[in-house]
């Protein structure tokens, strides 16, 4: 059945599928690792039990999400070779080194201290346990640093030359390679997105428990209220910062990848005297028109050039074979932006609620927070799709085409592996998500279970727990 597709298309589907699934886990765990470090530090500093209970609550969820991130991440590190071998051969001399640095400086750090963070509190004492928890958080950030540097280089390659004989990219200046033009913007925007993603998940879980208690006419636990407050502070402070960072990233993209911005904006036509901001439209690559367009005149020029009448080129200046698929980029971008503003809205709402003293007593706010719980994950994926599909039809922007990057594999081979990935990912990560939701479904409380196991090792007590799922050591 796969003979009808070409192998490169299937390889792209497979990469998109596996990287999208993988990305969801670090998007959550980068922020959660830092949150756990903050909770643990607050526990040590204040000795208020609620912080320790929250740590124990979220660390179980972290362990699940982190494990899924690890196993889906190993797939990525081999897929460059299995499916994109030509890209690997050509770009390896440049991007291989930063990727090796990611393994050496981040993956080992996370993995080495994870065991102590999860199981070692009573074995190493509070100080070292705190250090291990902080190391895991630092590791997630270092990992993001390197992989986003590599990714940014594919968008805005710098510091290289090309070997005329082999076609390989050769490093000239690793400083320029690592700190390539889009990297600082992408790093800030993506890491901030990860923090927001975590904040909204935490806020959503907290709001769920606030609502449940209200229905029963009882007071929610101090833990639920604490985490709701912390999450809403994050939303109120970080969402506006993120919108600012996103704007800066967009301007950087306009400078280095103007074609991507044309696709994001749906600008098929050039606008010599100010381009409109399209709110809605149906991009049609065949006719090169934006059908059913609804837009605000000149606003796009104002946003991108800070001048109502600034001219903006459209895709009519770009050969068809160099254009990305506009529909996906246009809509993915809009989804991301809409969620960003909804996050800002919830953050402002929470400030108003706080001012009125109704932060824990405003069911509509809590319902909105539950609804927005997974919004960060959606926004992160939409943003990722915007930037990666916007890079097409190149793997290394402007220099190496996607069609010339793939491994010499038969379509049936890639088709079969793609099917296997789809089945396994939905089954395994579906089950994992279910377990996470079940943990989230019970409220963090003063009796937050953990295991008594101080002397011999990380054993878990299946029989001691009041809930059917055995709780885990923190």
């Amino acid at each position: 059945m796969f003979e009808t597709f070409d192998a490169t298309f299937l390889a792209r589907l497979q990469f998109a599928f596996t990287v999208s699934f993988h990305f969801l886990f670090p998007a959550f765990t980068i922020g959660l690792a830092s949150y756990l470090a903050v909770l643990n530090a607050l526990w040590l500093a204040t000795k208020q039990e609620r912080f320790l209970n929250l740590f124990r609550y979220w660390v179980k969820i972290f362990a699940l999400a982190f494990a899924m991130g690890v196993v889906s991440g190993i797939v990525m590190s081999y897929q460059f070779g299995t499916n994109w071998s030509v890209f690997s051969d050509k770009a390896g001399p440049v991007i291989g080194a930063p990727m090796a640095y990611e393994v050496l400086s981040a993956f080992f750090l996370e993995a080495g201290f994870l065991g102590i963070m999860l199981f070692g509190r009573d074995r190493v004492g509070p100080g070292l346990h705190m250090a291990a928890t902080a190391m895991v958080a630092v590791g997630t950030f270092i990992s993001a640093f390197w992989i986003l540097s590599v990714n940014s280089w594919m968008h805005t390659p710098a510091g290289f030359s090309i070997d005329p004989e082999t076609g390989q990219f050769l490093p000239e200046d690793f400083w320029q390679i690592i700190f390539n033009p889009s990297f600082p913007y992408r790093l800030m925007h993506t890491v901030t997105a990860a923090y927001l993603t975590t904040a909204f998940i935490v806020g959503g879980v907290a709001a769920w428990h606030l609502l449940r208690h209200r229905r029963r006419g009882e007071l929610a636990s101090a833990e639920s209220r604490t985490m709701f407050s912390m999450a809403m502070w994050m939303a109120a402070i970080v969402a506006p910062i993120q919108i600012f960072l996103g704007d800066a990233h967009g301007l950087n993209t306009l400078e280095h990848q103007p074609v991507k911005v044309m696709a994001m904006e749906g600008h098929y036509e050039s606008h010599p005297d100010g381009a409109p901001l399209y709110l809605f439209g149906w991009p049609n690559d065949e006719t090169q028109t934006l059908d059913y367009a609804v837009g605000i005149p000149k606003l796009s020029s104002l946003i991108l050039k800070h001048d109502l009448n600034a001219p903006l080129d459209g895709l009519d200046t770009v050969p068809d074979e160099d254009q990305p698929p506009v529909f996906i980029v246009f809509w993915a971008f809009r989804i991301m932006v809409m969620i960003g503003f909804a996050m800002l809205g919830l953050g402002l709402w929470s400030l108003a609620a706080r001012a009125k003293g109704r932060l824990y007593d405003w069911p509509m706010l809590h319902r909105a927070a539950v609804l927005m719980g997974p919004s960060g994950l959606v926004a992160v994926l939409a943003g990722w799709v915007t930037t990666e599909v916007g890079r097409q039809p190149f793997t290394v922007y402007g220099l190496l085409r996607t069609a010339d990057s793939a491994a010499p594999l038969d379509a049936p081979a890639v088709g079969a592996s793609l099917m296997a990935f789809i089945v396994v990912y939905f089954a395994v990560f579906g089950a994992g998500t279910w377990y996470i939701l079940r943990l989230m479904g019970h409220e963090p409380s003063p009796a937050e279970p953990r295991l008594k196991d101080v002397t011999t090792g990380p054993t878990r007590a299946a029989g001691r727990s009041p809930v059917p799922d055995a709780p885990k050591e923190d």
Partner: protein
Amino acid sequence: MPLAEGISFDLTVIWAFLIAFSVLVYVVLDGFDLGLGMLFALERKREDRDVMMNSVAPVWDGNETWLVLGGGGLFAAFPLAYALILPAVYVPVIAMLLALIFRGVAFEFRWRTERWKPLWDVAFIGGSALAALSQGIILGALLQGIEIDKAARAYSGGWWDWLTPFTFAVGLGVMAGYMLLGACWLVLKTTGELQNRMRRWAMLFAPLTVAFIAVVSLWTPFLQEGYYSRWFTGWGWGLAGVVGVLTAAAFFGLLTRLRMASAELSPFLLALALFILCFGGLGVSMFPYIVPTEVTIWEAAAPEKSQLFMLVGAGILIPIILAYTAFAYWVFRGKIDADTGYH
């Protein structure tokens, strides 16, 4: 013979050794994890399984990271080799990755459900077994040689070329070897009945492993001319003799120590010695080829600038990694006791 032509210890050779080192550390560390996973199939008592899994729960993630370093290091230091080898072993690599997913999540999922616990046990066993088999097959496929188009810098064979009796023999050998490592690890980490049974499993898997080592070692020289001349001409005979004698010594030492109730660490160290000897033998067969016998490490090497930049980081970070990895093992040292946590 290329080996005789003077080895200059340049960056490329250093990187070849560093990657071989990462792969060896991976094989040894995740080897006992995966072997322990396969031993799950033979140990059906729930408490025993809990103890077995807990003996590696804090360290398995770090162990697996060496696989990422091996793959990532190959990509960075020898991009052409990475680009030639991985498409050639597409099916076993994908199978290994999927197997490692099942194995890895089982560590967490198993404790989250009562009803489906047996299912995640099966995922743990099956994932461990398939990952071990695939790793052996990948090694076998590399040893038997892959078809490449050197001018196009690309793999030119089909997607089932790896499937031969030889690759399966290597795959089964790796499975047996990992189970030996796993059993010896558990001799070190457990007590009582479980420890006794692990001694018996190790006594079973030790001869099985050595039998596979013998089969593969005798088969390999006949796969490619280069291997034969390396082992069976000139000083190759002497080297083969030394490796053979050392392997036999490690094997008999292992059997002796397994019978001694007081020996807890030494069986594991002797099993490690078997793996290190095999690995050394592989190195002798392959060097200086990275794709035997088509592409040498120098032909596949990344530019000096890339290798140097990475070596600075590796030189600083690998000792630190080894230090905190050792610290993590030290934190979780000692026996895992079945009773703790279950009152």
